[in-house]
């Protein structure tokens, strides 16, 4: 049996992070996910497989289709749920601060 995959390794890949972003918005079929990328379906499907093995994605069957969505329980395990959201805002506000400081010095010149 394959060793359990490392969650942090899983989210280190840009394509896999893009997949997480997509399914965070709505549950998607593997085909719909693959359509969003230039890579081959096999490549994307491999990424989905890794994310599923790490429990970052949840599978749900609806009729003949399988839908993937984000598994918030696992997300909570990686870090405090709110922390990355806070990081995002902090980054944004840091940017605002930097821009306005430059703006100020330009104005006083």
């Amino acid at each position, binding site marked *: 049996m394959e060793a359990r995959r490392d969650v942090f390794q899983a989210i280190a890949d840009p394509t896999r992070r893009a997949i997480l972003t997509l399914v965070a918005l709505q549950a998607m079929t593997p085909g719909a996910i693959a359509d969003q990328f230039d890579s081959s379906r096999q490549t994307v499907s491999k990424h989905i497989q890794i994310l599923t093995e790490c429990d970052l994605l949840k599978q749900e069957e609806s009729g003949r289709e399988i839908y993937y969505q984000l598994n918030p329980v696992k997300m909570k395990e990686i870090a405090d749920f709110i922390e990355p959201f806070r990081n*995002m805002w902090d980054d944004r506000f840091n940017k605002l601060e930097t*821009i*306005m400081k430059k703006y100020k010095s330009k104005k006083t010149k």
Partner: protein
Amino acid sequence: MELKTKINAKDGRQELVITREFDLPLELLFNAYVESGIVEQWMGTKVLKLESKKHGSYRFETTNAQGSIVFQANGVIHDLIPNQKIIRTFEMDNTPFGVQLEFYQFEKLTDETSKLEMHVLFESVEHRDQMIKIGFVQGINMAHNRLQDIVKKLKIKY
């Protein structure tokens, strides 16, 4: 390093409060929210419309390198009191997040520092948690990019 941004999102509530103290005079902080050219810079989006006045409205749009739209948001400004308060709605187009009601409170701390409190109300607890979930993923992306920047600097150094 401790983050300057605080977020209060109590379990089971359909609201959250984001607070941040800025190393900026109050007027400059407020400007960052009302001047479209500046909003474009720090939000990283194109501002199609921004009427910074009572009963005005706004529209943001971001396109990727291929020209397709990756982010669209709009809302109306219910009230705007310069250097004090903005009350507005916020809605991301083509997403299931619904409409948020946002109260921005701007406050002077000293001549060179100021504080922003952002009180955001969602339609339901589920809507709020969904938005945090999105932030989670974006947060991961940003943290990773920052990590890459740091690693790049290390590479140059050694």
